[in-house]
């Protein structure tokens, strides 16, 4: 069972088992790399993110326990934070661009292990493409670019107190749109 092994592997990694880290790496390489790439938009930087993430895992700097939810969700959050950090250290203003490929379907990649990802991805991309531009943009800036509350308020010319509500609304629209598709929202966690 995959998820059971994740937890086992994590514990072995805590006990400094190199083999376990290697297995965990194999399991998540593609997802974490693609997610990092989605955020930093550069192969070299995405690799830097991977390195940071696995150093953190090995050193046990951020600790996982099951009150933090699924291991995979925790790992993805850690990866996102690391990627945002790498992006910020680039010290340039993160360029904003709508990822055009979000509205396209990806036909490559038929590895069995990634079927779920692919399906989820297609449903998600369709749902995102139905959002208003501004809503797509605010999700992009907040979630994928890690822009600060203040920056978002400036960028969208919104009062500070309104930003949270806007983001929430965009995410809720996305969820509603997903719900209509009957796709991803079937998951118990949604």
């Amino acid at each position, binding site marked *: 069972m995959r998820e059971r092994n994740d937890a086992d592997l994590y514990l072995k990694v805590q006990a400094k088992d190199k083999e376990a880290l290697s297995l965990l790496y194999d399991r998540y390489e593609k997802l974490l790399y693609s997610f990092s790439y989605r955020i930093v938009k550069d192969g070299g930087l995405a690799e830097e993110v991977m*390195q940071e993430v696995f150093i953190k895992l090995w050193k046990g700097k951020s600790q996982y326990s099951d009150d933090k939810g699924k291991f995979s969700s925790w790992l993805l959050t850690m990866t996102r934070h690391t990627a945002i950090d790498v992006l910020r250290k680039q010290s340039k203003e993160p360029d904003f661009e709508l990822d055009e490929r979000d509205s396209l379907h990806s036909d490559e990649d038929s590895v069995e292990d990634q079927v779920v990802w692919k399906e989820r991805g297609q449903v998600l991309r369709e749902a995102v493409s139905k959002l208003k531009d501004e809503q797509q943009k605010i999700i992009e800036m907040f979630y994928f670019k890690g822009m600060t509350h203040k920056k978002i308020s400036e960028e969208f010319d919104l009062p500070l107190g309104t930003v949270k509500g806007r983001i929430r609304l965009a995410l809720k629209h996305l969820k509603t749109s997903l719900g209509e598709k009957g796709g991803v929202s079937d998951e118990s966690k949604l």
Partner: protein
Amino acid sequence: MKANCEQLLDYFNGTLTEDDKVQFEAHLESCEECREELKELEELTGDLPYLSIPEEPPAGMKERVLASVFENDSEETNLNLTEENDSAKLNKTTDFKSERKSRQRKWVAPALAAALFLSLAGNVYNYMNESNPGQTEEIASLIKAVQLQPSEAEKSGGSAALMNENGQMNLVVQVNDVADVEGDQVYQVWLLEGDTPYRAGSFTPNQQGNGEVTYQVEYDGEHKWDAVAITLEPDNTSETPKGKVVLSSGL
């Protein structure tokens, strides 16, 4: 909206400074609204990583990443002994590295034992099993696992895990490369709540300097364990630590 509540988005994105983050986490304890909003954000964004287009990882990335992980690890360990680029102390560094390698080999056996033990803990995977989200037959779950750090630049190490098993809390401790005991001496494990130590099992190491103990934590009332520590005691009856701390970690 209170000032703290305005930091929720930046907290979620991990962009707060370390100080602000600590403060916000304290705020979270007392602000139910923020807790709920944070949970909602996590739920609403849970699937967004899967928006990423599958990218082909660059060739050789695994070797590079893992090499840097392990290299970084030994550099860190060496910081106490030698500054980087300090060639005069290079020999010392090398010695220490090889020492460390042998220690890691020794460590494999107890680590596997722990993993086997933990793999019996059904809830760890039931909880995480995507295909059966409804099933939560609780057998045992990991509450927290930490690595024990030696107090001085000693080569000893170890790990501690707090487990919940059928409502019973167990503390599993394993150590490696600790010094021999003499006479009635034992290594005593303590759980600390604030400054108050609670006895949590004792052991004597084997000839290789490895030891382990599983302790049922049965102290009445609510406890919030802050740390775990191991001291060398004259015998196994100490009610408070008499010896110095050999290994410890926050919880």
